[in-house]
């Protein structure tokens, strides 16, 4: 944003620039300047909210910044963050996935029951679960690309189907961690890092974010995801196989949800058919708070990580501050509405 810093000179510098399309910026109000800065650096808004929340909650509660509590926030955020990563890919293509939580929970039930009921070795059961989760994502992808149905409708349907199958397979029973092979709950085991207790699940989560940051920003696939979400017809005319891109995105998201399932079992030390219903909305919330636009083509995985941390910090901080659990939803809901309004406002720069 080199142009914005030079704006300080105000109208005195206005005469210097000509015919570059930047003239109009000279006369913009401070608010418009903020709009432009946020437009160019979409990560700034979410980061500011996160920092603000951390500052406020550490003032409210002395315990907030303790190593133990921060470790807890990270552990609580991990599953949501992984689901939100898959959700980010889909939202970047201007889609939405209502079945994220259902795929994760059903995958965990499949992994646990394949290992316990069928006696399949732990690693193999885990791999089968990952494959099945990927297949569920691929089903969403096929329905979106082949039948050309809106993602909202497709995933609303598969949400019901996967939850219902989940109830059938699990017979609505929880599988205890002690009955499963230890690999299933390994993601919940912790190690110590400078006083913090960090789970292996959190490490997996951070590695996945690094991987997808790379894939989206450094590879052709990433460019194609953004282009497809931005304007699918333009991308098609430019020669991108948009159907392949969409299918790959839903399939990869399915795999990510299944990894989320593995981390979920570690976190709960069990596989429960009833936990995680709210994960759909939490994952969408994290994506939106992270500054990714629901209209597609705009957003960063790093933003999603920040968004997931915002959700975690708010939940945890309000709890420490003695705010009743029922009000947490209110706070998060308000945040989402504000985030979406700001996104709308920022997008007006394009017009």
């Amino acid at each position, binding site marked *: 944003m080199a*142009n914005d810093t030079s704006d300080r000179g105000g109208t005195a510098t206005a005469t210097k620039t000509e*015919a*570059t*399309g*930047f003239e109009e910026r000279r006369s913009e109000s401070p608010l418009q300047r903020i709009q432009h800065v946020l437009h160019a650096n979409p990560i700034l808004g979410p980061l500011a909210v996160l920092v603000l929340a951390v500052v406020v909650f550490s003032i409210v509660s002395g315990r907030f910044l303790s190593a133990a509590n921060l470790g807890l926030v990270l552990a609580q955020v991990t599953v949501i963050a992984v689901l939100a990563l898959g959700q980010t890919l889909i939202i970047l293509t201007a889609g939405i996935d209502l079945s994220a939580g259902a795929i994760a929970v059903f995958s965990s039930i499949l992994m646990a029951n394949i290992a316990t009921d069928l006696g399949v070795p732990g690693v193999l059961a885990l791999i089968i679960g990952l494959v099945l989760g990927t297949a569920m994502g691929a089903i969403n992808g096929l329905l979106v690309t082949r039948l050309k149905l809106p993602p909202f409708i497709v995933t609303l349907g598969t949400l019901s189907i996967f939850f219902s199958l989940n109830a059938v397979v699990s017979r609505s029973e929880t599988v205890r961690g002690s009955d499963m092979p230890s690999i299933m709950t390994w993601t919940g085991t912790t190690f110590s890092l400078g006083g913090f207790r960090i789970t292996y699940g959190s490490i997996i989560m951070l590695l996945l974010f690094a991987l997808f940051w790379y894939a989206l920003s*450094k*590879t*052709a*696939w990433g*460019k*194609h995801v*953004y*282009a497809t979400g*931005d*304007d699918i*017809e*333009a*991308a*098609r*005319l*430019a*020669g*991108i*196989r948009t159907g392949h891109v969409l299918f790959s995105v839903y399939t990869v998201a399915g795999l990510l949800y299944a990894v989320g399932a593995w981390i979920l079992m570690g976190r709960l030390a069990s596989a429960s058919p009833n936990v995680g219903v709210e994960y759909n909305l939490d994952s969408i919330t994290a994506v939106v708070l992270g500054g990714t636009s629901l209209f597609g*083509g*705009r957003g960063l995985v790093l933003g999603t990580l920040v968004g997931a941390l915002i959700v975690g910090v708010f939940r945890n901080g309000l709890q420490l501050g003695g705010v009743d659990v029922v009000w947490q939803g209110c706070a998060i809901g308000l945040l989402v509405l504000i985030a979406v309004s700001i996104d709308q406002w920022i997008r007006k*720069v*394009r017009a």
Partner: protein
Amino acid sequence: MSVETNVEAGSQKAPLREPVLQAKGLVKRYGPVTAIASGDLELYPGEILAVIGDNGAGKTSLIKALCGAIIPDSGEILLDGKRVHFRTPMDARRAGIETVYQSLAVAPGLDIADNLFLGREVRKPGILGSVFRMLDRKHMRDEAKRHMSELGITTLQNIGQAVESLSGGQRQGVAVARSAAFGSKVMILDEPTAALGVREGNRVLQLVRDVRDRGLPVILISHNMPHVFDIADRIQIQRLGRRATVITPQSHTMSEAVAIMTGAAEPPPPVG
């Protein structure tokens, strides 16, 4: 996409030269709507062929069939006398046909370099590229800069600028530069000056001439009669989804062309 030899190619009245690109009897229907009733077109080496016609005459549909963006219901397309079947826009681009669409077909959120290389990104050499699929951003930016300045587009401040932050003329420039950079056989432009000011419009016309002078034949769709008569070697008039006739700027005046276009005058037999 498959290529088969066509024995009849060139057997028509086409005189000395073989058309580079030829359409014969293309038909495209959308339910009850006929977008192309009979799509015929010959593009000869080194020429600028303008296509004019009223709104809805089927100009865009015709060129979309030529560049793989729509698949015609029937008819055939010949490239260098060989029959081609483009299933996707990429098929046509691979065959050397580059198109600047009426809608521009740029990704607004991506930067200029990304847009120029959209769909044919260049990866880093070595295992960084082959295994880790890493894009060679520096190479693509340098090349993009070169292509933009080659076409005289030098007012851009930053090749890493998002396309949505460009002016209409600059965006048009990106779309034209992309086609000029990769086109090896034919360049097609669908109303490239429609949204432009006088100065920008003239610049795009100059770009088109430069491209032709580099040896690439060009199909230019335009509603701007002065532009068409200024730049075209031949002018094809589309009417009601078919070719009414072909004229030249020398054989007819603008008002005669408009009269034929609107059906007020009988189309003369095609020239050339």
